[in-house]
């Protein structure tokens, strides 16, 4: 049985939904952050798989850029988290509801 690109796409979708559920279910800001990383990785997998299917290397280049952006995002995001934690002594995003209407 040959493993086609479709298999990888299905796996990517599953990982994406797991990441999205993590976003919605967990209130720990760090875990939410890791969920975002998981979603990004899921999409990266689809890039690589489709790139292979159509024989185009640009899929992998896209993955490279996503990684760079993710790295930058993690750096800033974690810095924000530390700044918030200093003030609040809590990593729960449910405590940060000051913009309530």
């Amino acid at each position, binding site marked *: 049985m040959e493993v086609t690109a479709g298999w990888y796409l299905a796996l990517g979708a599953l990982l994406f939904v797991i990441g*999205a559920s993590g*976003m*919605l279910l967990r*209130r720990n800001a760090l875990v*939410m952050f890791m969920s975002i990383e998981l979603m990004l990785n899921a999409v990266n997998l689809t890039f690589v798989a489709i790139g292979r299917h159509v024989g185009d290397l640009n899929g992998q280049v896209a993955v490279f850029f996503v990684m760079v952006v993710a790295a930058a995002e993690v750096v800033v995001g974690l810095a924000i988290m530390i700044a918030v934690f200093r003030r609040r002594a809590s990593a729960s*995003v*449910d405590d*940060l*509801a*000051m*913009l*309530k*209407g």
Partner: protein
Amino acid sequence: MVDYIWIVIALPLAGAVFLHFFGSRLREPLPGVIATSTIGLGFIYALIATADFFAGTGEAETVHLFDWIAPLGANAELLWDPLSAIMTLTVTGVGALIHLYSIGYMHGDARYGRFFTYLNFFAASMLILVLADNFGLLFVGWELVGLSSYLLISFWFHKPSAAAAGKKAFVVNRIGDVGFLIGLMLILAEFSTLTYGTVLEEPARVITTGMATAITLMLVLGAAGKSAQIPLYFWLPDAMEGPTPVSALIHAATMVTAGVYMVARTAALFELASFSAAAVATIGAFTALFAASIALKQRDIKRVLAYSTISQLGYMFLAVGTGAYVAGIFHLFTHAFFKALLFLGSGSVIHAMGGEQDIAKMGGLRKIMPVTHFTMAVGWLAIIGIPPLAGFWSKDEILAIAFGEGGWFTFLWVIGLITALLTAVYMTRWMYLTFWGEARWEDGVHPHESPAVMTAPLLALAVGSAGLGLLNTPWPFKPALEHFLEPSFEAIKMAHIPSGSTPWILAAVSILTAAAGAWFAYRKYQGADAFDIAPVMPRRTGVWRWVGNAYYVDDIIGNLIVLPGKLVAAWTAFVLDSEIIDGSVRAVGGGVRRIGGWLRPIQTGFTRNYAAVTFAGVVGLLLWFVTRGVG
């Protein structure tokens, strides 16, 4: 000399600019001295520049200063001809004396420097008006004198009545200016230029009589506003709220004569439109009578003179409307002297009486203020027309020419004669109640003669009022002024005094009328010497109530024009603006606020809620893919 005639304007203008910045820092009387010397130097310069005209060798010259609105023919160009020369001499000559007088009159005023700024500014504006070589520049001067008049009427703006009077003068003049401006636009449309030379040289080549009538009637509306003629006369009595030198300079001697000057300047157009000319004469005659009748019952020392000014301006309108341009300018010239004299004299009295202006509370000032009394007596005789004083020659020339024209003008002559009678009555009453009889002063008033700086101009003006009438007397000289002004009216067919013995008879009638009026008033008020003012000012009944209240014109205008205007304004302010316009704005704001209130609970502030909504959006996009079958 004539090439630099702009110096006459520049001197007072420079004075005004200088005093504007430094006037409040200079010590009294320095601002007054500066202002007086600028205009005095201007007078000397103008006098020298006029020398050629005196000699009979001068010709009209235009001086181009710089381009302003060249396509419309409205450049900064000055016209120096006998007409503008005599106006310049009047403005600077009488103006200089009044400036000098103001040094004493305004003594101790908190805004001494500012007063002379305005006074110099007015002089510069008036000189622009009379020296302009085109209607555009004329209009600039026209508006600037209106502005300075406004500033000076409400100079004591802390008095609500003065502020209101300034506004009234300004607004009424604007009404006249609308007509004037329409006239200028018609001229521009027909002649394609505003330059006097082109417009006034045989206008019949370009326009029809009908168009000339339309243009001139519009100009007359402007002239009536500026010169306080029916129907726009009613601002001038209120303008007496200004300091007395202002009344003398602006509202008697110079600015109010601008309308007369303008009609004389555009004589070529009025010659073409005989209907307008007759209208001017009629307006003048009726205004003269109307204002003189009101003056009979006024109690304010300056209001009598204000109505008298309106009345005398009516004579000038009668003259220029009849075609007697020289007579009109002649009367303008003499009136500038004797009316300025009377105003300055009344200012001297007010000064002496400590601000009292009610002639019922004066009397007996003859011995206390001998110089003022003497000069006032000269002015009084001049205005009622007793020879050989100035007023007699100019007024009787007007009346004689009107009589000589015949027809409708004979009727106007009758009105003019009645006005002369009334003039004699009210001026004698004014003299009697102020200077003669017994003192009816209120307690604590200690009159005194005014200082020399005030009486010197009085004496100078008295000399002018007495002697200047000889300038245009058929006897003993040839009519010098007529000869002098000839170059300005070369192409105009002018009305002249009838020949033969008629003028002598008319003069005799005039003198008798004046004498009768004076005698009547003297007898009437002679018996009224008492500390009680009741006999002097009996209760007004019947027609006198109407006269005493100036025919209720202010009330009529207030109820017919001002009140509806105020109602419209109030409706606009309190209903249209605050209810309808603001209401709709508030409704929009309130609606947004209410909708915001409904939507507010959506914003829970929980990040995970927002994430869930975002993810729902992703799922919704997928749903769209599935249902549209794109996948």
